[in-house]
């Protein structure tokens, strides 16, 4: 891996500058055909141009995915008894993921044109309301 990386980075340096400048105004000089450079470019772009609240949402989504995968893995390994407990636990995570994803769509400034009538405050209020209902449902369902 290391020799290949060095080789490709040196060869494709001039072409990268031309293509990336049009999409994002970054001073990064990575090549478009280098996977690591692309990844680095994405991360760089993400860290610089994404609002902090959206980053917070993404972190929470990542946390929910890990929680959900752990629960499902336990169900596969240890069996699904009691099944309603599994449903409640897994549904809480998945439902929370869906609600948070919705919040991300509505609160992201990039989508402002699509949700012109929904302010970020309103979106957050909806999110809290729905989440509370979801949590009540799950805690009841698990008995």
């Amino acid at each position: 891996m290391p020799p290949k990386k060095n080789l490709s980075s040196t060869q494709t340096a001039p072409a990268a500058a031309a293509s990336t400048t049009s999409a994002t105004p970054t001073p990064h000089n990575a090549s478009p055909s280098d996977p690591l450079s692309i990844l680095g470019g994405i991360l760089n772009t993400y860290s610089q141009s994404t609002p902090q609240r959206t980053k917070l949402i993404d972190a929470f989504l990542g946390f929910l995915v890990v929680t959900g995968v752990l629960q499902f893995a336990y169900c596969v390994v240890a069996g699904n008894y009691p099944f309603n407990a599994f449903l409640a636990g897994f549904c809480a995570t998945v439902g929370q993921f869906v609600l948070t994803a919705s919040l991300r769509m509505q609160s992201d400034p990039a989508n402002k044109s699509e949700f012109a009538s929904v302010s970020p405050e309103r979106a957050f209020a909806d999110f809290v309301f729905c989440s509370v209902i979801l949590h009540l449902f799950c805690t009841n369902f698990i008995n």
Partner: protein
Amino acid sequence: MRLQPQSDMASRTVFLLFFVNLFVSWVSAAPLTSERVLAVIEEQSDSAKYSQFLAGLKGRGFDVKLESVKKDTLALFKHGEKVWDHVILFPPKFKGYGPALTPQQLLEFTKLGGNVLILTSPSSIPEQIRELARELDIGLPPKDYIAVDHFNYDTVSNSEKHDVVLANRPAVSPAVHNYFSGKQDDLIAFRGAGHTLGNGPLLVPILTASRTAYAYDSKEDFAYAQDPWAAGTQMQFVSAMQARNNARITLVGSADMFSDEFFDMKVQKPGSTESQKTANKEFCKDVAAWTFGEKGIVKVNAIRHYLSNEPNAPVNPNMYRVKNDVTFEIELSEYDVDRWVPFKVPSGDSLQLEFTMLDPYYRVPLLPASTSPNYTTYTTSFKIPDQHGVFAFRVNYKRPYITYVDEKYSVTVRHFAHDEYTRSWDISGAWVWIAGIAVTITGWIGFCALWLWSAPAAARVGLKKTE
């Protein structure tokens, strides 16, 4: 819960029973079903022939009344009630038994719970008895057919016909209640006709002929073994039918068997060096005792079912829940001549409880748990199946020689109430998912807090973007 032993028994019987139990030490002997015996005989003077047998009956508390066949006022019923509890029919000499003892009358008598002991002799089997036997699916031989056995006959009475057949006591099966097997070297002298049994499920043989016995027409000297009417163990000497209401009809092929002559007779088997006394007296006593309900009467004293795990659970509730642990108990007594004794299931047999809804869901053995002087308690515990509906506890114990036990008690089985399910934290398997919910909610709260805290920064970023 006290239960009547048989549903068809009159309350009068129960009343009597009570006194039997109460004064059992004072009363030397008392038959269970009551004691009025009608003995129908051709002439009063003939009764001398059977004096020992009749005296034995009287000695055991039976009130035996001898009546002649010719008596006009002879009747089994009065005002629709039976006036006798048991009937003994001795063989008439010439004709039948008269209008009071038609097969229909005798069957009506058994329907009301009366027991009948029929003694026949080859020379006179009246048409009434033949008709009754046809109804019971018992095959009687034609007139003058006698049973002989050239290997087990009495050498002392010196009959060339070998017609005094010597039979052993019935063999004991470990799976059957047997009230007729005394000592195995007992010999029972028999002179008469055998009969055959049909396939009726209520018919039971009591004394079966040996493998070498056969029946032939005694008027045809040369018929002998060439054309036997019945042979070997297909031929019965004594057999019985116990009706569904537990009334008993016993048919004996030889009236001589019950006579004083045979009671006192010394017999000797061919090949044997010394003669021995017959066991007729004991065997005939056993036959009469069984027929007249001194033996083989089984009573259910009580039935209890309750929740196994709760110390103060109500007895015999109407409702259970699925998956309840239930204990079932049944107390069984058996009548033995003059008192109730604990009922014992034979070693080769099993008393079973069925838990049925249309079909048995469970059929579990009931095992003896405790014994009192009067009854045995059989018990079993099981978990009610995961199926709601109307179920019945059923004990269906129908065996030869004993009265039928068929008890059925229905209970409702409901499903779990909504608050009866186990809570999730009581099941260790659910802890992971409880933790999943807790982590999700905690994470959500943290997220909301961070979201609100980061508002200014978000606003700043938003402003920058719009610019």
